[in-house]
């Protein structure tokens, strides 16, 4: 029940709502709809055939492998960083917090480039890697590293403010009651941060699966070997296999929708907790 003093006239409400919805229609709803429409344009049979094709399956496998490495690594990093930053005082804390956010400010293409500069044939470790017959760039390790770079802030930046807000009282009491470090973390801290952690994992996972620019630079686009799902979409699209490209893209779009649903569930859950 809004008092009249802060209520806008009806025409203004209708107009603004219409403008907002139109904007979202053209920039969000239609792009999403076109993905599924194009994916099924040649029928369900073609759709299924495209995503069951060996190269597509290899791409899916590589994407899952990357996520399976990157997400746990970033969870470990996020938890460690949040523990150090939120539970202790030390000089340079704000610098560290800024540095953790740094990858968000870096273009994905540059994220790929810097790994080429370090591990590429002409990079710092290039000659050494070649001498030992190891490949990072144009191989899976490069894809994993570039993805880790791009996604490393996600978990940390969810957890840091959360754990800062929660303070150290509960952990301190646990320690005075005789719990050791791991017990304190697993039994006191973790239950308090589980939703924030989950939230960070969802976002990290979505970005890791969908990363395109950084991976594009380091992968070398070797079909069936160093192709992730987004790269496979690009290849199919550039070969004018539009329906095929959208078929694989629709899997990624479903992932995005699932991410939004999970994210909203977590947000509503948190909003419901007093």
């Amino acid at each position, binding site marked *: *029940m809004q*008092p*009249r*003093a802060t209520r806008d006239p009806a025409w203004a409400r209708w107009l603004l709502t219409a403008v907002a919805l139109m904007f979202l229609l053209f920039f969000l709803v239609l792009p999403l709809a076109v993905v599924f429409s194009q994916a099924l344009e040649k029928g369900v049979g073609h759709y299924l055939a495209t995503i069951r094709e060996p190269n597509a399956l290899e791409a899916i496998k590589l994407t899952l492998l990357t996520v399976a490495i990157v997400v746990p690594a970033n969870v470990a990093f996020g938890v460690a960083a949040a523990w150090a930053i939120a539970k202790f005082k030390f000089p340079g804390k704000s610098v560290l917090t800024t540095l953790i956010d740094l990858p968000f400010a870096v273009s994905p293409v540059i994220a790929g480039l810097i790994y080429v500069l370090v591990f590429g044939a002409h990079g710092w470790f290039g000659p050494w890697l070649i001498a030992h017959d190891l490949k990072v760039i144009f191989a899976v390790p490069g894809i994993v590293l570039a993805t880790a770079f791009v996604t490393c802030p996600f978990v940390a930046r969810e957890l840091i403010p959360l754990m800062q807000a929660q303070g150290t009282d509960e952990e301190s009491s646990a320690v005075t009651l005789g719990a050791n470090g791991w017990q304190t973390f697993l039994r006191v801290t973790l239950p308090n941060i589980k939703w924030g952690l989950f939230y960070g994992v969802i976002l990290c996972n979505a970005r890791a699966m969908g990363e395109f620019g950084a991976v594009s630079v380091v992968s070398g686009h070797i079909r069936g070997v160093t192709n992730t799902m987004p790269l496979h979409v690009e290849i199919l699209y550039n070969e004018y296999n539009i329906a095929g490209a959208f078929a694989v893209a629709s899997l990624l779009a479903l992932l995005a929708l699932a991410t939004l649903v999970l994210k909203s569930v977590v947000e509503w859950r948190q909003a419901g907790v007093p």
Partner: protein
Amino acid sequence: MSIEAHGIRKKFGAFTALDGVDLHVPQGKLVAVLGPSGSGKTTLLRIIAGLEFPDPGSGRILFHGDDVTDIPAGRRRVGFVFQHYALFRHMSVLENVAFGLRVRRRRDRPAPPAILERAHRLLELVQLDGLAGRFPSQLSGGQRQRVALARALAVEPKVLLLDEPFGALDARVRKELRRWLRRFHDDIQLTTIFVTHDQEEALEIADEVVIMNQGRVEQVGTPQQVYDNPSTPFVYQFLGNVNVLRAPALATALRPGGVAAATQEGLIYVRPHDIELAPHDAGGPGLSAIVRHLHAAGPHARLLLEQVQTREQVEVEVSRSELSGLNLKVNDLVRMRVRQVRSFAEDFAI
């Protein structure tokens, strides 16, 4: 300007905030609307200001006899001070005070130098002129309160409405500021209503107190009237401490010359300072009681007694000298007599 409210009703969904409220505030008075939270007092104030509107067809608001019920807040010429001040954070103190003048229509708007001059004068009036360039976040709570007041006065309101004006301040500042408000009101003579849940505050500075409960007005009167002659059990309990006892014991407890209003069956209400104590062997009227707790810090001594017959707990307040004359200790027997009681029929009780 006088303010009248007739038969105001307001529902928020299923909750009845105001259930037929009538109010008359004479020109130039400082009136306190007092009640517990949820009593509807703030809603009443907001309806008077034009920030809320009574339920359709339910009642009228009159300013100086003119019906303003359908006039929006901006054109009622009311100065409203919000509980948390609602200062504009991005504006300096001076800009906050000048805002009401700057948003006037061009033909009513004073020239910019005149606006600034008036804003400065108002800041002097509330003793804040040195802080004109500060932002609200740089002020103390009491200072913010006075900026809010100056801002409300800038539009030359006909009435001043204050919603829990001292609610967000700490105890010491609150006392200072409410005395200041009383003096200030005496100087400017503006019809003023303030809402509060603090009975001490209302009784100390208001000309008249309106006591509200559950969307209704329980009693209206001067502070002395409402304190000495509460018309309902609610008012009795809300204004100061009170002992609620069962009536039959009363007959023997009344002090010679004491006043007992309507001593029929039911509950009786006795203020702690309306009980006097005598040595237990003194004889005469009175009830026997055992001292259960003694608290003698401060100007008055507080005792918790247990009446021997009924085992009811009774709170008593006596002067320190009276107490030392009795030389009481915990678990001593004592005789208590009542100076003044009130009783209400039982179905009246809250």
